[in-house]
């Protein structure tokens, strides 16, 4: 796929996403849009995708582990909801939720400098349980198991997003687009390259001047902030905050979403979140068998396509290119170091990027 085509397709997809759920009957068109519940499900998909984008940065790009994303959603959700109910404008609540998680993310990132892989997963797992216990037990603040009720949706420019459902959907979609753009910018910037270096070979990265410590903490902080942003949007969506929305198994689910969708691919979190949030709705007829179907899907995916759905798709759409097995290259008359030369790649046909 060339750039222009991908861009057009992306724009078209966003356009359909935004207008698809809308009721067109007032305009005389035979499409009455989505009902409240499907629109709610779509919004939940976007919120889940935001949180998964954060996990994808930490796990997919920087090669670290986190089993604490649900905890960050919790921190973000309660921070935002408690501030909002005390009259703070939602924009401030939203940014504070992200900022708090950013700072906590830095702190949680420190163990990542000492322990790696599943040891790091255990550290974040413990943190996840800790946060859940705090939410459950500090009833004076969070309402505990009685849950925090009446989490209101914001009023933006005088328009209440309480209902119809599509208003809040549009709001969340706008925020998702913004956060997705920021993430896209981040992973395409030299920082993104440094994160990839961190994942592939931290020792070599360090020897090339890359501050592995700094980048590790940054990845953790930004990824966790995305969890906070998602949490801030989740409360008003559901309308009630319950500790069990932020239990450990939820953290595992975010990890699963990223891995199933395609860890290290930009669209991975969106696809993975669709599988986890929307697929259950379509598989309603299967009722209790849904979980079995889902589990089988994940097992098959991991066994045969460990790069996830997006990785599988990429493999199907691009032909495998192998470089020439020519070890020698031109042996005589290479350009000298001091003189500028013709741009490299002009002699090869392999330069086309997908």
């Amino acid at each position, binding site marked *: 796929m060339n750039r222009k085509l991908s861009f057009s397709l992306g724009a078209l997809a966003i356009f359909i996403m935004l207008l698809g759920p809308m009721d067109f009957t007032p305009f005389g068109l035979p499409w009455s849009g989505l009902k409240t519940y499907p629109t709610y499900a779509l919004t939940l998909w976007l919120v889940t995708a935001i949180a998964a984008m954060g996990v994808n940065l930490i796990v997919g790009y920087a090669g670290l582990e986190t089993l604490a994303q649900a905890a960050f959603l919790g921190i973000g959700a309660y921070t935002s909801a408690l501030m909002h109910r005390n009259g703070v404008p939602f924009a401030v609540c939203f940014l504070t939720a992200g900022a708090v998680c950013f700072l906590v993310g830095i702190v949680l990132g420190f163990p990542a400098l000492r322990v790696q892989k599943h040891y790091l997963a255990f550290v974040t797992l413990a943190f996840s349980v800790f946060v859940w216990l705090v939410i459950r037990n500090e009833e004076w603040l969070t309402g505990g198991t009685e849950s925090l009720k009446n989490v209101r949706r914001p009023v933006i420019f005088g328009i209440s997003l309480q209902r119809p459902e599509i208003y809040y959907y549009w709001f969340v979609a706008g925020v998702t687009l913004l956060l997705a753009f920021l993430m896209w910018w981040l992973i395409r910037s030299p920082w993104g390259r440094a994160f990839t270096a961190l994942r592939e070979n931290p020792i070599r990265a360090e020897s090339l001047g890359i501050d592995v410590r700094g980048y590790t903490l940054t990845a953790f902080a930004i990824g966790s902030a995305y969890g906070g942003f998602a949490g801030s949007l989740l409360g008003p969506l559901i309308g009630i905050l319950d500790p069990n929305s932020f239990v450990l198994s939820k953290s595992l689910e975010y990890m699963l979403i990223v891995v199933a969708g395609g860890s290290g691919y930009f669209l991975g979190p969106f696809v993975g979140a669709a599988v986890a949030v929307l697929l259950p709705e379509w598989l309603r007829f299967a009722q209790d068998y849904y979980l079995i179907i889902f589990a089988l899907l994940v097992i098959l995916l991991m066994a045969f396509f460990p790069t996830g759905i997006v990785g599988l798709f990429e493999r199907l759409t691009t032909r495998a290119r192998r470089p020439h097995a020519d070890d020698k290259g031109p042996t005589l008359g290479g350009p000298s170091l001091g003189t500028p030369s013709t741009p*490299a790649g002009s002699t090869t046909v392999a330069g086309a990027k997908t």
Partner: protein
Amino acid sequence: MSTATAAQPVAMTSQTDGKVLEVRDISKSFGGVHAVRGVTFDVREGEILGLIGPNGSGKSTLFNCILGQLTPTSGEVLVSGRSVTGLRPSELNRLGIGRTFQLLQVFPQLTVRENLILAGQEHEGSRLKRLFGPRDAGLTANANRMIDFFRLGHLSDEKAGGLSYGQQKLLDCAMAFMAGPRLVLLDEPAGGVNLTMLGNLKERLQAINKATGATFVVIEHNMEFVMSLCTRIIVLAEGKIIAEGPPDTIRKNPEVIEAYLGH
């Protein structure tokens, strides 16, 4: 420093009598194993110093102590007269010291050009500037020059993981030079490289040395390669220096033949 490239040699300070690197009585023990025992030597500006010795003689451990990968048990390392013991590898790299590792160390998922841009990007501007600046950190032209120089032109957009071993080895080397270092420590650059490629590599290293005045320290087992590339050689055995001198003297040294060359 920040704009230094392979094409622009960086002048050394003259207060250090042309010594780029001073290793002062470095020792390193792992539990009861004394890998390096009180090694002292200087590296003068512009020279190509060979470091040879049997397997397990402490060469790579010494490299890792100099470059901050390991903390020496005792001793001191000075770069251009400044003590750098205890600095992290990334800080040392940003001071102008490049290195390659014994085992192949490229980033397989990045293309050849991206590998090189990565190798240079942390030397360009501040970190915040890099986030908002161009994706290539302004290094594409530099990377292309390096690609041409190491004759990898036909591979610029290939993922490094798809290259042959020898090609990856060349890329590995090119990455060490991307930021225009004054001092480069190469750990077995010729290991597993075929003869044609080896000639290419040696010639490229000598060309950089000539063009930029960069200083090299080279660990190598390929005697022909070391003897023809280096201007001076240090022989290490059981963590200690047993001989030091120009290639011809080393070749004839009975102690060296006993410890290493004879085998």
